[in-house]
């Protein structure tokens, strides 16, 4: 039986390789060995996802590999969460409200951004796809989110993204707004008033860090 750091490294490797069953059995082993759930998440599951993201940026991984890594990480988090006890959720640096704008159902990029931001320690409120502007605003207000992340893959729904950005900008305490998706570019994002543009999911944590200062 692997112990301590060695076990956390095994968990990270299993996440990176997208081996969900291995992640679950190793997380179970780690919990039984008395490793705190927070440590399992922060030192095992999240680093594994970050490694997968780095491999994606180097074109050694592609969307399928990144997706199965994200699923493996989420499975591990689901197992670890009930064991967090009174210490609560692992240190979340920012709350991010995330979703695909109204009229669009392409959520693969959004799902990966969610996984990458969670792996970087953020609390992500994923609203799914086809999300009306008002729902984004409600969730930003209700959760005191400092960041609003919007995604779309179609040119036909770019006006809906722009409208959501405009409404969010007009809020009393507007969030930082980051956008991403196939029809976007830095210039398109700036033109619609977003604070940041994410070219791909793996770069989302770095983008957020640069915007938050």
């Amino acid at each position: 039986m692997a112990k301590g750091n060695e076990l956390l490294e095994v968990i990270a490797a299993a996440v990176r390789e997208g081996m969900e069953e291995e992640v679950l059995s190793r997380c179970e082993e780690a919990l039984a060995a008395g490793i705190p759930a927070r440590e399992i998440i922060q030192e095992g599951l999240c680093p594994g996802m970050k490694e997968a993201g780095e491999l994606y940026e180097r074109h050694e991984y592609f969307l399928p590999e990144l997706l199965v890594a994200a699923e493996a990480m989420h499975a591990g988090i689901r197992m670890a969460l009930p064991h967090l006890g009174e210490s609560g959720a692992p240190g979340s640096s920012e709350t991010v409200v995330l979703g695909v704008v109204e009229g669009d159902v392409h959520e693969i990029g959004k799902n990966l951004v969610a996984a990458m931001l969670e792996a970087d320690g953020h609390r992500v409120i994923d609203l799914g796809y086809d999300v009306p502007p008002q729902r984004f605003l409600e969730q930003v207000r209700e959760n005191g989110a400092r960041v609003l992340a919007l995604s779309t893959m179609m040119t036909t729904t770019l006006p809906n993204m722009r409208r959501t950005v405009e409404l969010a900008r007009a809020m009393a305490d507007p969030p930082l707004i980051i956008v991403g998706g196939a029809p976007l570019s830095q210039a398109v994002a700036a033109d619609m008033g977003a604070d940041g543009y994410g070219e791909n999911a793996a770069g989302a944590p770095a983008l957020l860090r640069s915007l938050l200062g």
Partner: protein
Amino acid sequence: MSVYPRFRGKLIRPTVGMMRAASGIFHAHGRIGELLPLERVLCAAFHKEPDRVPVTHFLLGAARRLTGISYERFSRDPEAAAEAYIAANELLGGDVLYTVIDLSVEAADFGQEMVYPPYSTAYPDYRKPRIASVDDYERLEPFDPRRSPRMGMGVKLARILAKKAGIRYPVMGFVFGPLGVLNMMRGAPRLFADCARHPQKVKAALEVITEVLVDYARALCDTGVDAVMLDTLFASQSGVSRELWVEMEGVYARRIADEIRRNGALVALHNCGTRPYLDLQLEYMEPVIVSLADVPDDCADLAELKAKYGERTAIAGLIPTQSLLLESPKAIMELAREQIRVLAPGGGYVLAPACEYPPNLELANALAVVRAAKVYGKYPIK
């Protein structure tokens, strides 16, 4: 009906060798007079310099605005869609007629429920995926695409356009690639995960889909279209790895491409992914022309694309959709001018947007693309 005669019910088409020879005649004619769009495109497709660079505005859903029909009617009524496409070419001046309706045509006929928005492209209702569980991959059944609602419409649209185009325009049928069709029934996140975890089940579905798409391609060829365009979106760095693409789509797409050739039409290809695997797609489908949104994964820029692949296939594209959205018509003309300068010498280039012209965007930039071909695309390129 088409420009090609029939003998015992079968279309009699020129061979590729005959088309290549004809392109030489068109090339000579183009030096002294104006070519018809069909002549111009054939000339370019076979790497001869026509009178000027052929151009397509790539108006698909946007074409409906020229005849004032709803998006749903465009998506369901072949006569109305054909009228819109012809209006787009007549009014804006494009050189190619497409039969693309949307990317969900094939999936819808496999039973995927659809949404038909009033101002946007029809799309699958992912809340009700046709492939709801991994076991559903093995439950797909083949059918006759000629008798199915949406592919049947695709065949009717192709027949109408082939007839109306006469000898003026080349008509290009369209078939979405097998992995793309499956994506529309499962959703990309689940499909990609299933490719990793349940590859045999995914392949069982791809077999059935390919069987139907081969038949669909045959039916399109039989309408008299000049070429059939395959869209293998996932063969790019924004899709799957090179190895996975070969395994999950390349081997299936090859069968469709072979069928298109067997039925006498030219194979065309569209890939609007980032850093496409052009070498693999050429190996598996051998297209005469490839429409791209980005330079391939093994090229640094447009010049290397032309140098490395310009002899092997004709190239169409690569005016970025983002530029169409943001830039002025004058800036688009300058962008097109530069692409013409790099890609057009020696023929083998069709000026075009990287992907579908944004359906709700004003049409000034579509006009700019066409205008650029007429102003800057005259051969010899200066």
